[in-house]
């Protein structure tokens, strides 16, 4: 018995040593985050972020129109969060999507792929021309988030699974002593799924303080307003009761999106849920708060009108 445990101590020791050596190697070769090496500027001002978000919104309109289907409403409500993540908050490298040092982002609400892809294209993961092939046969740009698309970390589309994936990443990274952040974007409809709460309970019990999630609370799901289909309120209290650090923000304020994220990085012992109050269809007057545009692409006239509105400055604060 004694021999056995000594032997296993030795194995653990060697294992840890190997991990350290690997880490030094990764650090030296710029494969883990190193403050001296920033692939992307992460100091953009709120005004710059707002300008980028406007471009992203225009792409969401163009690309869903070109596809003739897709989910513009929930893409527009998430556009500011996604922009802030990819242009200021996340550590990532569009030139090297598999960079070991990157933070991990999971689009749990996989139908918001048009928003996600638009941000990834804007960040330079692939071309805008390729973006425009969304949902076409033979294209990599699949209808729901898919890992064949450069920059997409996890394939999603069936709601309610993203947080469990995040938990897996978070456990693994903690085991390996890696400091990268695990970030997921959930919809309010995903709070209907039991799995979300199984994952929520697990994350807090395991003290996964390397997780930050945003919940895009736009108040609309597929069949109608969330308050009429399955009311999730009081959502803050639910997440708090499940052991999470909860921050409620205006999900269209770059300042609040950024500050909440930065605050989450300092929290010890708990994962953080940022509940972002948003407007479905944000930025386009006739799409805002309109259930119809959850899963319907704008037609030609609507596209012209939407682009004109976005150019005229709606969609930013």
């Amino acid at each position: 018995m004694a021999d056995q445990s000594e032997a296993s101590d030795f194995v653990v020791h060697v294992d840890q040593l190997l991990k350290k050596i690997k880490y030094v190697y990764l650090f030296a070769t710029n494969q883990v985050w190193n403050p001296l090496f920033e692939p992307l500027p992460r100091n953009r001002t709120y005004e710059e972020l707002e300008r980028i978000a406007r471009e992203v919104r225009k792409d969401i309109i163009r690309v869903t129109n070109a596809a003739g289907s897709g989910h513009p409403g929930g893409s527009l409500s998430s556009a500011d969060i996604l922009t802030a993540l990819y242009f200021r908050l996340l550590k990532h490298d569009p030139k090297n999507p598999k960079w070991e040092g990157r933070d991990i982002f999971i689009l749990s609400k996989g139908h918001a792929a048009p928003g996600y892809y638009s941000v990834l294209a804007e960040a330079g993961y692939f071309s805008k021309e390729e973006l425009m092939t969304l949902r076409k046969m033979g294209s990599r740009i699949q209808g729901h988030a898919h890992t064949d698309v450069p920059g997409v970390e996890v394939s999603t589309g069936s709601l309610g699974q993203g947080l469990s994936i995040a938990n897996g990443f978070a456990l693994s990274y903690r085991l390996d002593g890696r400091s990268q952040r695990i970030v997921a974007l959930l919809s309010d409809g995903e709070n209907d799924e039991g799995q979300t709460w199984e994952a929520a309970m697990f994350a807090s019990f395991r003290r996964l303080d390397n997780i930050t999630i945003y919940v895009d609370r736009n108040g609309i799901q597929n069949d109608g307003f969330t308050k009429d289909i399955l009311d999730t309120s009081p959502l803050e209290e639910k997440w708090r009761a499940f052991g999470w650090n909860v921050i409620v923000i205006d999900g269209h304020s770059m300042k609040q999106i950024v500050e909440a994220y930065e605050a989450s990085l300092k929290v010890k012992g708990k994962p953080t849920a940022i509940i972002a109050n948003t407007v479905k269809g944000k930025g386009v007057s006739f799409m805002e708060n309109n259930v119809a545009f959850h899963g319907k692409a704008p037609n030609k006239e609507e596209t012209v009108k939407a682009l004109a509105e976005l150019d005229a400055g709606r969609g930013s604060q």
Partner: protein
Amino acid sequence: MSPAAVKMESQRREYGRALVELGARNRDIVVLDADLSVSTRTADFGKAYPERFFNCGVSEANMVTTAAGLAMAGKLVFASSFAVFLTGLTYNQIRQSIAYPRTNVKIVASHAGLSVGPDGATHQMLEDVGLMRGLPNMTVVVPADARETYQATHALASFKGPAYMRFGRADVPAISDEGSDFAIGRASMLRKGADVTLIGCGQLVHTCLAAARQLETEGISASVVNMSTIKPLDTGMVDRCARDTGAIVTVEEHNIINGLGDAVCSAVAAHYPVPVTKIGTMDTFGESGEAGELLVKYGLSAEQIAMKAARTVETKKRMR
């Protein structure tokens, strides 16, 4: 019937219409959906009988198990969503609470198969028939067109016990004028030939008919069977086809593993072995694209079916 004259109809719409009719007749019918009621058309029932319709939100596992509870308490329950969520997220719930205790729940899925189109692989369910037919006590129905969907909904309401029915999102061509009345467990012979039998289900039955017409121009005479119940399989019909034509081709909008093809193969192997070619998706996921072009890309067009049928006839001759 020229291809241009084919009537395209929605199976979903006919499902919704049948539910509304049934709701008027039977006060014990309760309908559940999981935030897709507009797409599955259960919303039509919800409008007519709001007190007997429950939208469960995006909680499929909760929904099917609630359906089981309602049925145990005496209700006749129809629960709907997209095929991928309704069978994939709920398998053990269906197994334990519906199949095992023989609960009177009708699990009715729309958006099955490749023809979901642009939403892509995450939404194109190609394994649901396999999941459901593998469950003891489960009946599995795949109606061929809108009219048969309507009839099957009525038939399911009169049938006691667990059942799964699936159909697609896209409008499908009508075969009704060539078909007979629907009954659970009974296949129908739509066309009688001598060289090979095409056994199809769902919207591909129509494609089988087109393939048979094409084969005729090549001098091959094909039977076409609409196998609208996958389980219990009409083994009598399969046996007859095997004896009469000596070669079988199965056609389904489903993985060739575990679907109609495998069900037919089991029956053929047990009773009267003849060559069988299974046509379906070749153990692969789908992808984004338009319904029609995807069916062609994945080998489910009349031309490709005819080609494989001709090859199966060759195989039969070689084996003699």
